[in-house]
């Protein structure tokens, strides 16, 4: 359905209006984060501050620095590990059909849809028993394990595009299971690795349920620290808003710079899963 003439003006007006509506929360977040606590008043919530109060950010950074650091360590290490495992799993499930493999994949993929409440208490007890409760290594392990379904599925669907003839030729040249992965599959894994890494990084950075139940205060990721601050009483709103900007920044930057790959991950999740 393509329109011409005056209706094109109408459509452009409409889309600009919608974009403004979508940006309202961003506008309010930024102006509130730049107000001094004394200037935050419900009636003047929509007015930008006369003088930006940058101290909100200084305070927020010093308050959130430990949890931001935790989130960076957690998201990067869990992303790399789960992407590496997903790559090798995807390779096996795509190119090395073993007996029963047909039933394995749906069972694996089911794991990414479950409500994590349904495994939470046994997980909690298990982490306590193996001594990983409360710290970052435990959270990394949890994110790697529950990231396996999506990373495996994404890599598998990318590897399906590598023609089997190419593998056949490599066999004739004497390559074995690991050789083909190392010299043929891995060099072609750049774009899929980027898609998977962006997806996992965003998911892990944004995750809350595991973080709030499995981390001691010293290992809290940013989502928990932000929820605690914003949920507490008698806090002036410039801080949670500045904290929201800090918590959102990494994933928004990744999205704006690498949006193409982000969207591919989103679409693959829906159209192929």
């Amino acid at each position, binding site marked *: 359905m393509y329109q011409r003439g005056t209706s094109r003006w109408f459509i452009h007006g409409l889309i600009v209006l919608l974009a403004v509506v979508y940006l309202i929360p961003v506008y309010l977040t930024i102006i509130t984060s730049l107000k001094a606590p004394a200037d935050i008043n*419900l009636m003047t919530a929509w007015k930008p501050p006369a003088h930006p109060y940058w101290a909100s950010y200084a305070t927020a950074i010093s308050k959130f620095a430990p949890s931001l650091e935790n989130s960076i360590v957690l998201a990067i290490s869990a992303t790399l590990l789960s992407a590496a495992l997903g790559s090798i799993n995807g390779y096996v499930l795509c190119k090395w059909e073993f007996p029963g493999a047909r039933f394995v994949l749906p069972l694996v993929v089911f794991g990414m849809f479950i409500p994590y*409440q349904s495994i939470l208490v046994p997980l909690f007890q298990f982490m306590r028993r193996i001594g990983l409760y409360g710290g970052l290594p435990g959270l990394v392990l949890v994110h790697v394990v529950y990231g396996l379904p999506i990373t495996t599925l994404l890599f598998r669907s990318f590897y399906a595009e590598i023609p089997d003839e190419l593998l*056949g030729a490599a066999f004739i040249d004497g390559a074995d299971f690991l050789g083909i992965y190392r010299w043929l599959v891995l060099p072609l894994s750049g774009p899929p690795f980027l898609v998977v890494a962006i997806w996992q990084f965003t998911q892990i950075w944004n995750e809350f349920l595991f973080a709030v139940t499995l981390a001691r205060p010293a290992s809290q990721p940013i989502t928990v620290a932000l929820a605690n601050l914003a949920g507490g009483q008698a806090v002036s709103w410039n801080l949670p808003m500045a904290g929201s900007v800090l918590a959102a920044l990494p994933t928004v930057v990744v999205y704006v710079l690498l949006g193409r790959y982000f969207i591919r991950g989103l679409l693959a999740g829906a159209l192929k899963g």
Partner: protein
Amino acid sequence: MRSRRDQVMAVLVIMPSLALLAIFVYGFIGQTVYMSLTDWGQGAALALKPEIHFVGTRNYAELFTGFLNVRFRQDLVSMVFFTILFVGASLALGLFLATIIDQRIRGEAVFRTIFLFPMSLSFIVTGTIWRWLLQPRGGVNVLPSLVGLPPAGFLWLSSREQALQFNWQVLPHYVVLGAAFVLIAWGVWSAARRRFRTSALVGLPGMALLAWAVTGGAARLQLLPFPEAHGFNLALVGVVIAATWQMSGYTMALYLAGLRTIPDELREAARVDGASPLQVYRYVELPLLAPITWSAIIILGHIALKIFDLVFAMAGPDNAPTSVPAILMFLTTFRGNELAKGASIAAILLVVVSILIVPYLVTSFRAGRA
């Protein structure tokens, strides 16, 4: 060509991952289900060697019919309303945005980015932001005063008002009626496809159920000895708005990808046949987007049924009007130490999500699409 050694290697390489998933997904689900069949809780939760008894399905019966568990039933109802409204709004808005953006507008990439970027945020960030926007005497409510109108006074997240109330007592009656209609419709559908055996197998029980419901038999299956009103908590509207703000860009991206894969020849052919732009949209483009709608319903639906972070950040876990089973499970387990009851809620949540996900997984893997 492929040696036995390589084949063994392949299985060995994938085994650790499969073993981890077997334990962390299926093993833990098994443990949760087992816990839900015991009386583990309260004193026993804190004891060093808790004394736990097997109680069968008592926890489940309590949740659905017990006098004390009225909040669980309301949360279940809230979850259903939230899911329907959020999925419906995201689909409608996403389709609308995709249709507009597909009009070859200027600066398309900028608009796409604006509508899609909330998707990259955490539900915690979205919740914190919208918590501020929906303050009773601030944010959205003072918007009318900017143009000289009196400010609105809606209590976005704490309103106790309910719409569409119904009596939980007679729920079995409605369920039987619903099941009867589904079975009869299935029977008619099979008969139309000349599968008379299936038609009789599902249609006749359907008619029997209908007769039972209509004659008042099912109405005697009362869940509670007392009437109990549940309905749609208006406080959830704010959560629906925030969730739709975050996820409608996702449905937009899905629909836009779908619209862009429709070959132009199809549209051209319809136009040559004299179809107006609106007719091309209605009869050529929309039907081709149906599979995308199904995928989006599954993806958004399972997110909505499990919704936890957003409610936690927007209203806190203790705010009853916005509570859902995922929140209640958290409170019951970690604040109330009622582990068995929490496990029952978790198991019910898993069953509800599975009803949505399992048919989707089965059909997509059988079709070999994945």
